[in-house]
């Protein structure tokens, strides 16, 4: 057993209000510079929809992540084999191009001040941030925002493939039209295909916290990682010639602060905490059939209260402080204790360490002679009558395993019914105890889920690992004492253009 500590995340989608504050918090700090304009380390997508870059989930096209070799039962990169890896350095047809992202633009704002007097009002036209030439804007990083019921975008969401023709058509009618939001950052995977794909060895997982980083000094800009990442969360900087990605704001984590996208999350949907996992078992765990992947991933995550695990973790250099953080981790509660947070597209087999609590959506409607009614069969929304079919959510969060998704939704609903009955006792208690049984939740657990969902303070949402930087700075030619006096001196050089 090789126990590692990973800073992990939960996004509670029922709470997501789709505001994109997270995206801007990230953009302002990290990617507001030439070469990075089109990068959105954090973005938010409307589902059903095609996302950013367009149709990123279509691995038939982009060939991201791992595939299971049926014969060897081993994982292979989908993006490159031993043979074509070298060739693809020079031409990779599966790599997203600017047309899959968008051409970043700005406006000729200065014309509003400088236009000479004419016979009509001046206006600032859009121009490319790359060429400076006028552009026609046809795509953007959030092009299908709030576009439920779009025949162009929503309809092409590949997760709808499993739906019946009727169900699909209804998504564009009043009965079922619906949407949800999916915020995305790098998953800081435990089995990252980007690391495996990098020909320069520039990508690594940090030992102390599992954050996946691209060394800007080593990266040669081959972009193999861009292809290999199935979530398309690595971007190529056209100015520096290096690839960049979400760094989970490690300078903030190192100083005891939540990452920007977490701090700025106005829906309070984000949770961050440490998980312990068995690194030895990671690749094998990702070789099981699709429907078993969620359970398999759970089996790799370890119980931080188990004395045996604690002992082995200590032996592996994980501090008591860190273990204590893992015990208080809100992520552990959601993922392991309550089992209501699930990985996104676990079938990509990268073992993403970001988990999502699926949303509860409004009930379906029905039309009778043009008059609208809701398909109500309970006080709140119900499992069967949800506007987005379970099948769809299962494609996103459980590799198609509907049972897992149903169990999550049942538990979430049982908690709401329970709380309602505690608050004003106007619901049938027999019904509520049946729902709690079916949702596999006790009153005590329901209270805990409620409290962490509705009431958490910043310190309860983000149980930050105590990153002891003095240890990270200790090496033969570097020590904390020197750092204390010397760090920050000198002019900073940006990474030089690579390959």
């Amino acid at each position, binding site marked *: 057993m090789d126990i590692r500590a990973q800073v992990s995340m939960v996004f509670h989608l*029922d709470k997501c209000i789709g505001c994109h504050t997270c995206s801007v918090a990230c953009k302002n700090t990290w990617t507001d510079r030439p070469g990075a304009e089109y990068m959105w380390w954090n973005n938010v997508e409307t589902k059903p929809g095609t996302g950013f870059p367009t149709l990123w989930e279509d691995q038939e096209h982009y060939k991201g992540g791992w595939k299971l070799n049926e014969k060897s039962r081993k994982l292979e990169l989908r993006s490159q084999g031993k043979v074509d890896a070298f060739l693809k350095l020079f031409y990779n047809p599966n790599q997203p191009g600017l047309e899959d992202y968008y051409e970043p633009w700005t406006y000729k704002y200065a014309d509003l001040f400088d236009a000479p007097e004419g016979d009509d009002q001046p206006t*600032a036209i859009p121009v490319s941030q790359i060429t400076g030439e006028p552009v026609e804007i046809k795509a953007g990083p959030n092009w299908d925002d709030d576009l439920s019921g*779009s025949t162009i975008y929503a309809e092409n969401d590949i997760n709808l493939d499993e739906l019946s023709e009727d169900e699909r058509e209804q998504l564009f009618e009043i009965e079922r039209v619906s949407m949800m939001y999916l915020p995305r950052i790098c998953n800081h995977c435990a089995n990252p295909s980007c690391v495996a794909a990098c020909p320069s060895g520039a990508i690594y997982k940090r030992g102390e916290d599992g954050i996946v980083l691209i060394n800007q000094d080593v990266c040669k800009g081959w972009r193999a990682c861009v292809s290999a990442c199935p979530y398309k969360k690595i971007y190529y900087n056209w100015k520096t010639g290096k690839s960049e990605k979400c760094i989970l704001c490690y300078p903030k984590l190192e100083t005891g602060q939540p990452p920007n996208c977490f701090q*700025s999350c106005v829906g309070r949907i984000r949770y961050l905490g440490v998980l312990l996992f068995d690194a030895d078992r990671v690749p094998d765990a990702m070789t099981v059939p699709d429907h078993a992947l969620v359970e398999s991933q759970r089996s790799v995550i370890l119980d931080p209260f188990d004395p045996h695990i604690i002992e082995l973790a200590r032996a592996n250099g994980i501090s008591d402080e860190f273990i204590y953080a893992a015990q208080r981790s809100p992520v552990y509660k959601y993922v392991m204790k309550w089992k209501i947070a699930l990985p996104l597209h676990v079938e990509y087999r990268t073992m993403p360490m970001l988990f999502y609590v699926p949303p509860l959506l409004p009930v379906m409607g029905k039309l009778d002679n043009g008059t609208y009614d809701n398909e*109500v069969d309970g006080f709140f929304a119900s499992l069967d009558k949800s506007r987005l079919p379970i099948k769809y959510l299962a494609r996103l969060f459980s590799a198609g395993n509907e049972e897992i998704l149903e169990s999550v939704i049942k538990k979430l609903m049982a908690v709401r019914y329970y709380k309602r009955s505690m608050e*004003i006792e106007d619901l049938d208690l027999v019904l509520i105890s049946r729902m709690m049984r079916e949702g596999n939740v006790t009153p005590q657990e329901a209270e805990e889920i409620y409290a962490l969902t509705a009431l958490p303070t910043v310190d309860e949402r983000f149980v930050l690992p105590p990153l002891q930087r003095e240890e990270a700075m200790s090496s033969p030619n570097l020590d904390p004492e020197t750092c204390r006096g010397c760090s920050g001196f000198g002019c900073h050089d940006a990474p030089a253009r690579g390959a």
Partner: protein
Amino acid sequence: MAWIRDIFAPKQRQWEDFYRNRWQYDKIVRSTHGVNCTGSCSWNVYVKSGIVTWELQALDYPTISKEIPPHEPRGCQRGISCSWYLYSPLRVKHPYMRGALIDLWRKARQAFPNDPVAAWQSIVSDPESRKRYQSARGKGGFRRSSWAEVNELMAAANIHTVKRHGSDRIVGFSPIPAMSMVSYASGARFLQLMGGVALSFYDWYCDLPPASPEIWGEQTDVAESADWFHSKFVAVVGSNVLMTRTPDAHFLVEARHRGAKVVVFSPDFSMASKIADEWVPIHQGQDGAFWMAVTHVILKEFYCNKQVPYFIDYVKKYSDAPFLVTLSKDKDGNYVPGRLLRASQLEATRQMENAEWKMLMLDSATGKLVAPRGTIGHRWQTRKGEWNLKLEDSITGERFDPRLFLTQPRAEICSHLKASAELAKEAAGKAAPEPVGAPATGGATTVVDDVVPVKFADFSEGTSDKVLVRNVPVMAVDTVDGPVMVTTVLELLLSQYGVARGLDGDYPYNCDDESLPYTPAWQEKFTGVSAGLVENFARQWARTAERSKGQCSVIIGAGANHWYHNNLIYRAAIMPLILCGCVGKNGGGLNHYVGQEKLAPQASWAPIAFATDWVAKARLQNAPSFHYIHSDQWRYDTNFNDICQVSGLGHGMASGHTADKQALAVRNGWLPCFPQFNRNNFDLVREAEEKGARSDEEIIQYVVERLKERTLKFSMEDPDNPESFPRVWYIWRGNAILSSAKGHEYFLKHYLGTHNNAIAEEAARDLVKEVTWHDKVELGKMDLIVDLNFRMDSSALYSDIILPAATHYEKHDLSTTDLHSFIHPFQPAVPPCWESKSDWDIFKGIAYATSEMSRQYLPEPLKDLVVSPLMHDTPDEIAQPTVKDWTKGECEPIPGKTMPNFKLVDRDYTKIYQKFISLGPNVRNNGLSVHGTHYDVADYYDKYMLGNPTETWDGHEYPSLKEAKDVCELILLLAAETNGEMAYRAFEAESRKTGIDHTHLAADVRSVHFTFDDLKAQPRRYLTTPYWTGITNNERTYSAYCQNVEEEIPWRTLTGRQHMYLDHEVYRAFGEHVPTHKPRPDVNLTRDLVKSSPDGASIVLNYVTPHGKWHIHSTFGDNLRMKTLSRGIYPIWLNDKDADLIGIEDNDWVEAYNDHGVVCTRVIVSARIPRGMAFIYHSPERTLSVPKSKERGMRRAGGHNSLTRTRLKPIFMIGGYGQFSYGFNYWGPQGVNRDTFVRVKKMTDKPEF
């Protein structure tokens, strides 16, 4: 791990400093944004190398209670994009002037080297030069100027205007002070010291819900968002909480997890719909019909079939339900509801003070008529201490139990109501029989259990003449004028709502009766929502309210409030709240959030903002009337009856042209009118003095005589006379020419005199009778338009002078909102960039330049006559029991009674600056007051001067207002919300009025006083005061009207109770005395498309402008961050099937046009949008990516308000009657905008820019 090696090695990781260096910063400064978003979020602004680099939300809000979610983080995607502006190419860095004007000015200054005022006069009085720069407005050609040059020009224009036209031609517009109250105060203070005019905003933006003054006598008072968490049932109506209440939305989501049910009513599948348990795709603008039917069900099932003690007790005490309504017999033998029965009508009570303003109830035990405490008559009587909600006879002081029903509640059998028989049995068993009345004291006898046929108008078919006759239980009362039939408000409402309770008449046979209002089946044809849904909703609602004691709430917003008949929609939705005891409860009530109107420390801020610390009377104008009249939109308007159904009573206010109603409103003192007269005000006073008037009274009498003989008119009676024009317009903190300008193209035409795309024909010529019609009008009324701005927005682009203003990160200020109960600061993270200055410093500079120049031109003090309407919260509100027009000889013109108030004040133009920077003596000598409750501050005023900056001039010392930070400090010191001693004194004063001791609400906080430094350290939660109706003591969340309910403080209305019945004669004439439903006008009635002729490839759509996701009004929407996350443009949203009809695909270019103007933009196509509608999210700029319109001769297309016009509903013009009395941003018609239609067609050619 099998293949992957984690890296610990420090050496290999030294490069990590690359990103660490970016995160390093030099300073964090707490500030916020003032953009009228209601967020009022606390932000940390990061400064690195002296440059603002980014901002992140502060996380340190004080905890209200561990039982509710914390407030952190607050702040949205738009606010976090603010730092983009500071150094962007859109930043206004220097003073700019229109080239055409700068040339004229410099030339004129050469011609008049020592006389800048003559120079200005030479430009504006010469038609050619006037046209030269006016027609260049909006067409580029800006040139850099200097502060010295623009200040001199503005001073010259100010002085010229004062001398030539009168100071009330100088107007200013700045929206909603709470969002940055000192910045608002800067210009407002300058204007009032000048004798200029402040234009209102809350009503103009259509953010004011007139139902709130109608029912509660309150501008708006709502729960803070944290209070949603206590709700057990939330209906979201016309409000897109997730999109527009971004930092608050989590409380709603979290309330769901506590077990609240959320039902979202929205025609589109909105962001808020995503979190609903049930989404109800109700037809737009028809929400009223749904709620009427909900109330029908509640009245039938929870008031008649059974009775809920909690509901009954509540409406007896806190609503007008038990008051008696008189019924008068019509020609046809049927009855019509009239005024509430008054004490003045009975022999026994007619001698009471203010007897005409005291309304009566019936004692259920004795059958006697009782004048309960707490009515408006008690409020303004000499003897204080009787204005409270105790159910006590105000003559004997004895408690009594008012009677609600004149009949026994009778169970009805509603065929599909399974439980009804059961419920009936239960109700019959429980309800104690109410005794039949015995003769009351004082000779009034009562005969009970009779019924009479009463007429109820049914407007639901869009006509005015459909009348239903329904029997109503009544009793006869002997009055001084003989016997009068009366019934209770509740009985009248039961009949209005069609609850038959065994009575004969045009009642629906049951809930399935779709032919008669207001059954669930009836509402289907308006809402598209099934009757079954209404019934389920109503029952779940009422049961939740019964169980939770009123924890049902309605979150309501612009989607309901921006319609012409918004008051009816709101009233319909408020009825179930009142009837189920939800108002004044934590977790309950009507939560209207449209605009950041809650300026918490009002008492100390208002005298600074409106300069009443120096000048007793301010000139405050309701903007909707101002713009409707002065931008000449009335000329294109027809009689309002085209779109507004009225009852058959035939009242003068209920028919005709809106402009004529406005004229009457001005004459009667209902609404303000600035400019005041069609003459220079100073000339008028001078003339009076020359004619021998010595005292103020004689001058006023002279003016009244001229008005009476009609040789002098109010400007709004003759608005197109150049002597009535507004002349100089200051705009700051807002986007007055486009964002809020309903009828934007008419602004361009009539105010600015530049190109516009309106093609509507004038229509009022033969319709107006009281407003002077000029066949030809002079275009370009405004001599000068000045815009203070940090960005080049549409208003800046069309102004003559742009003054570079500090951003939210470059100034000191204060912010409060109704969405939370904290107050926090703006602070400069960096000094104002380039040549920009804070608003306070800019107006201080203009004041200085104007004062200095006045030494030459206006060296002597002048007497100024200030006209103001009959005001709410003063004895004016019992001035006019009936409507009478003195110009028709119906009464004498008596200032303050039958016409406006007149007051003479002194203006010394050489002292404008000194007064601007000094807190004047009126504050010290008169104390502070809000809503008529007053407290002294002299000791604090004096003490402040001991250790703080002061100004000394003319031998007197005053607290200094020179720096914006000093203004903040004084606001915090003297306001009850931020100084506990002031709160205590205010409650002492309130206690004297009510006769109940309320001081316990402030007893524990007398030593609390927040300073600016306190706010810098952490946002502070302001204190409970009588100026707001919630109670935040003991870890409670703020919910409106808790003080009324718990402290028995009356609402500031006619009866002192929540009004379900509105007895004003104009309300009866409009048929709006009872809650009712008037359908929205169709396209033909709106006259939006008379000249915009059909085109084969176009489609007619209802056009709405909901608040959007990527902007707060127009701010943030033009920055690169928001533009990138949306689609790079301000798109129009269409339904997919509608788009198919005209061959439009997603992202195509379209023209949307009507007679008022045109918009060219790209389209977004989605089934999320209902058919028949087009959305352009409020509010675009004309500055970005706007092509030329083929439809309008290849001229630059406009913005969202190019397609709207101002439409006023005259019912809101009445005054001098209880809660229907004027207050700035409290009462008056609003700038409604949703009853608008456009044609949309594809742009076939490549767009030209």
